[in-house]
């Protein structure tokens, strides 16, 4: 491993209330929430880079988004698109010595980038919490479920074990685990996959966090259990009013859960807007490609139209648009714009909160005439 680089905090303002000192048009675009509500989580110009023996891996580049309380943002992308890396940066879970994080992450107005580990510990699990993909490996196998819940509560609350236990039982009941007193003293291996994920959700909500990041919460589960867990997350959000960031690769899940959608490709946001905007009126060839590649339960038996090729290496991102090499519409853009100049994330209709990163001029008409008919 190469020597750890010092964190470059020059453009990450410590005074959070003032916001970023250099506010470009693009950055401001990102911080406006598609709903227009006051956001609770604001991510601005976030970049996450890992120095490795092979060079600098740019996992996330210039990512901006915001989530108000009571709303769900889905971050969609394929493996390696930076969706998990960016959310782990929000939670402060990256190894500081091996990661360079720049930009700004503000939670309820407080800047998180550059916080000490001790300060982060106070926020993590309390104001924000995370539900991981694999409940099998994210619960401690040697402690009872109850023990882990009680610990999670007592880290942030100075209460007796009995009070914490009462709270833990309440939470188990709330997430639909039958017979909480018995389940309380059981170990994770005695739980089924779906029950484990419920326990995981109980643990992440025990301190009543305002922000919940759910990283592929149902990917490891069967479809009937997935439906139960998605319903549970939806209901709990109604009850607690928390902001949810849902990371997923499954556009079906997005359609059922999300208020807003952010599509990531090769570490960058390529399209951002309300779920309706992005899924029903997408304005970026990569999003079109995703929608055209999924065989759905309701679709007719037509040939799938996959996206050709592979995503670029994050070690060596191409100049210009990262999607250009796989994009079927490159030749419709004048000159060699696509391969030489990175398109900005701009409003699709000149104004408004639906943005996309693409040089194409007639995105709307291409979608209406060519893509939409094929999607049915």
């Amino acid at each position, binding site marked *: 491993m190469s020597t750890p680089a010092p964190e470059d905090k020059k453009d990450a303002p410590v005074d959070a209330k003032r916001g970023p000192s250099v506010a470009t048009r693009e950055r401001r675009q990102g911080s406006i929430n598609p709903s227009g509500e006051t956001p609770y989580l604001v991510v601005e110009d976030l970049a996450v880079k890992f120095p490795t023996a092979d060079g600098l891996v740019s996992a996330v580049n210039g990512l901006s988004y915001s989530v108000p309380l009571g709303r769900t943002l889905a971050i969609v992308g*394929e*493996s390696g698109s930076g969706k998990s890396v960016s959310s782990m940066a929000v939670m402060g879970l990256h190894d500081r010595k091996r990661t360079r994080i720049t930009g700004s992450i503000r939670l309820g107005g407080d800047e998180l980038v550059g916080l000490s580990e001790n300060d982060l510990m106070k926020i993590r699990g309390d104001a924000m919490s995370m539900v991981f993909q694999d409940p099998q490996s994210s619960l401690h196998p040697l402690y009872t479920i109850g023990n882990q819940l009680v610990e999670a509560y007592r880290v942030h609350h100075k209460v007796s074990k009995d009070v914490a236990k009462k709270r833990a039982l309440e939470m188990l009941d709330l997430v639909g685990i039958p017979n909480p007193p018995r389940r309380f003293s059981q170990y994770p291996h005695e739980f*089924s*996959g*779906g*029950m484990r994920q419920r326990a995981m959700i109980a643990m992440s909500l025990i301190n009543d966090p305002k922000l919940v990041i759910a990283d592929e919460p149902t990917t490891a589960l*069967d*479809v*009937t*259990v*997935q*439906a*139960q867990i*998605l*319903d549970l997350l939806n209901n709990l959000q109604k009850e607690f009013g928390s902001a949810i960031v849902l990371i997923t*690769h*499954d*556009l*079906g*899940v997005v*359609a*059922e859960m999300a208020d807003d959608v952010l599509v990531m490709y090769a570490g960058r946001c390529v399209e951002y807007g309300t*779920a*309706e905007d992005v*899924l*029903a009126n997408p304005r970026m060839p990569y999003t079109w*490609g*995703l*929608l*055209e*590649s*999924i*065989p*759905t*339960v*309701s*679709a*007719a*038996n037509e*040939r*799938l*139209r*996959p*996206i*050709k090729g*592979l995503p670029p290496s994050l070690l060596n991102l191409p100049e210009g648009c990262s999607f250009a090499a796989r994009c079927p519409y490159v030749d419709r853009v004048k000159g060699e714009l696509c391969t030489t100049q990175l398109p900005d994330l701009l409003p699709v209709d000149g104004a408004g909160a639906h943005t996309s990163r693409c040089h194409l001029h007639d995105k709307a008409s291409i979608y209406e005439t060519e893509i939409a008919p094929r*999607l*049915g």
Partner: protein
Amino acid sequence: MSETKNDTPRDTLLQVRDLKMHFPIKEAAGLGRTKKVVQAVDGVSFELKAGASLGLVGESGCGKSTTGRMITRLLTPTSGEIVFKGTDIAQLKERELRPFRRQLQIVFQDPYSSLNPRQTVSNIISTPLRVHNLVKKGQELARVQELLERVGLNPEHHNRYPNEFSGGQRQRIGIARALAVEPEVIIADEPVSALDVSIQAQVMNLLEDLRKDLGIAFVFIAHDLGVVRHFCDEVAVMYLGKIVEQGSRDQIYNAPQHPYTQALLSAAPDLGTIRGVPPKERIRLVGDVPSPIDPPSGCRFRTRCWKAEDICATQEPLLEIKPQSTPGHTAACHFAEPKVDLIAETA
């Protein structure tokens, strides 16, 4: 090749009858040890016609992969018949099996663990060629390159190792290895579930081409209902080691009769919802799949079924054609009735 026995219709390639796989387990109980069995597959029957594709769907633990492994004889069934072109291969010895191994190939789910990391692609693909004496010495490379080209890989890359390829490309190598021996049936065990959506579509299209161009029949094992609908003309839904419903794609997706199939379809998250065509009814199952060590009496689905009555606990429903069914559509339920509008239909 065209020799068939009287009891098998002319174009039936593979017939599976009452196939069972019980895995013994030891469990300490009280003072002694009792022997229990996991009834992974418990009486599965279906037919596969030449060039057709049958989808086996179900949730984890329903026995779909075990069924696939028995058909390719990676597992020896506890009982039942696997009749391939008139010969029952269920209990054949390794030596007698060899000619059939050539006909029945499998593509695995995980493209990372199913290729030997220390062998070149050329070696991986040519091993089956050598084992079955299919090419003359000196022509192996030409055949390997032909196969690589067939699955959409660069033939020049035959000297590379699996780690130099991406997940989708590795899955293509696995497919090329299965194709090498010119099989008549390929068992595809979750062939695309480890891949990203855009790559998944590439591999799906490749499989479809193979089916059309080479006339290979597929048993397609998957949990993703969308993928199965796309690829299969015939679908069998499994639950806890048994087939609960079987029929053509349209029968299963448009008018499912078994409550489990209905729940499965209703639970699949669908893009249709966002385009303003939400399904009319939502079914949500409670609880989890029971243990296959001690499955429920009678109907195995009854513990999660909203239609269950006393008869379901005492009498096991048979997989049969119901009075209201269209021909060829079978369901194993005492209260089977078709339900439409479970999935959002796109115009």
